[in-house]
């Protein structure tokens, strides 16, 4: 059978998954079949509903259903579209929070780096850097999120002034500015805190632990409508 020749020209044709039903097959034969592209997997006969279900799950790459049946896939597409491949710095002095935040962002394809303090964040964000965004915990010992953000903006302003100090030959100024989106991570979202966030130079906030909807809304402002120019 020339099944392997189907669908080689262009991605519009999707090869159906092939499941081989066998009564008596060795491991070696199974591996051969899989390697030849003849079968995606093998089920032993007699068929059992549970086995068919498990195999279908495996070959169709279906993950676990959400436990409370929430509409996760659509949101995932949205967040994955925004975060996939983005380099993100997560700053939190608590190791559990760091791991959970990183896990959530990585799920959507982000490339995550963690920092455990404001000071460490400053080191990572020395210019030039390749980060696309920073999630910053507010309440941290020694240097809180507000202070860290203030210092980051100071750093950026300094470099921006140096870069754009002079006019171009045609009289225009080159508009290339460092400004990393910084989102506060906070469990207590009070307006007073939000005001302070914005005053320090933060771009927004997101509640923690992350909820997909609010995460999406917060991130969508930077990765869709506003292109980041880092050069």
């Amino acid at each position: 059978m020339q099944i392997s020749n189907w669908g080689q020209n262009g991605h519009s044709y999707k090869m159906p998954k092939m499941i081989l039903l066998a009564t008596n097959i060795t491991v070696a034969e199974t591996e051969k079949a899989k390697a030849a592209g003849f079968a995606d997997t093998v089920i032993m006969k007699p068929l059992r509903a549970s086995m068919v279900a498990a195999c279908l799950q495996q070959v169709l790459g279906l993950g676990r259903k959400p436990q409370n049946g929430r509409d996760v896939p659509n949101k995932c597409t949205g967040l994955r579209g925004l975060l996939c491949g983005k380099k993100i710095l997560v700053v939190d002095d608590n190791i559990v929070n760091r791991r959970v935040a990183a896990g959530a962002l990585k799920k959507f394809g982000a490339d995550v780096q963690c920092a455990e303090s404001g000071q460490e964040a400053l080191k990572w964000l020395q210019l030039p850097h390749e980060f696309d965004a920073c999630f910053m915990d507010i309440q941290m010992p020694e240097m809180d999120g507000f202070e860290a953000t203030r210092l980051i903006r100071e750093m950026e302003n300094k470099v921006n002034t140096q870069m754009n100090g002079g006019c171009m030959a045609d009289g225009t100024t080159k508009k290339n500015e460092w400004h990393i989106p910084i989102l506060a991570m906070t469990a207590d979202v009070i307006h007073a805190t939000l005001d302070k966030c914005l005053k320090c130079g933060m771009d927004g906030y997101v509640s923690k632990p992350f909820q997909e909807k609010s995460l999406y809304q917060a991130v969508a402002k930077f990765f869709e409508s506003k292109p980041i120019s880092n050069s």
Partner: protein
Amino acid sequence: MEVDQLQRSFVEYSRLLFHEGFLDGQFSQLQLLQDESNPDFVLEVVSLFFEDSERLLNDLTIALDQQNVEFKKIDAHVHQLKGSSSSIGAQRVKNVCIAFRNLCDEQNAEGCLRCLQQVKQEYLLVKTKLEALLRERHDKRVVHDLNCGFIFQLEQQIVAAGGAIPMLNEFC
């Protein structure tokens, strides 16, 4: 391996945990973050939570044992515990932490001591339950992996050994 029983008790146990308020929706979020590229995520995060919490509870005990109680320091520790318990969905621990912080604000040493006892209790309760849950998940996953990867081998072996192939109900 009595997978049916394992799986049934897993579902019932999870429901019980949620119903009694030990774990909230955040814990299910963690489960959703676990996949083939991150197969031990829940275990890792829960282990970190245990380590972190035990350290904090220890620090709190010492801090409250001082002649001059430093409420700011205590509040900082409780804030940490509130954050981490919130991140893994340990709802009851988090709620006690909220009350604890209020007592710190009031500089109520006796109240704080009582709260410390309470938070220790809640922590131990959720720890026991999480450990049991993780053991059951591990067993279920072992079976799942066997199912999808090596079932034909196993079946041959079982039949060759004169055994009966167990009925396995896969569900999410």
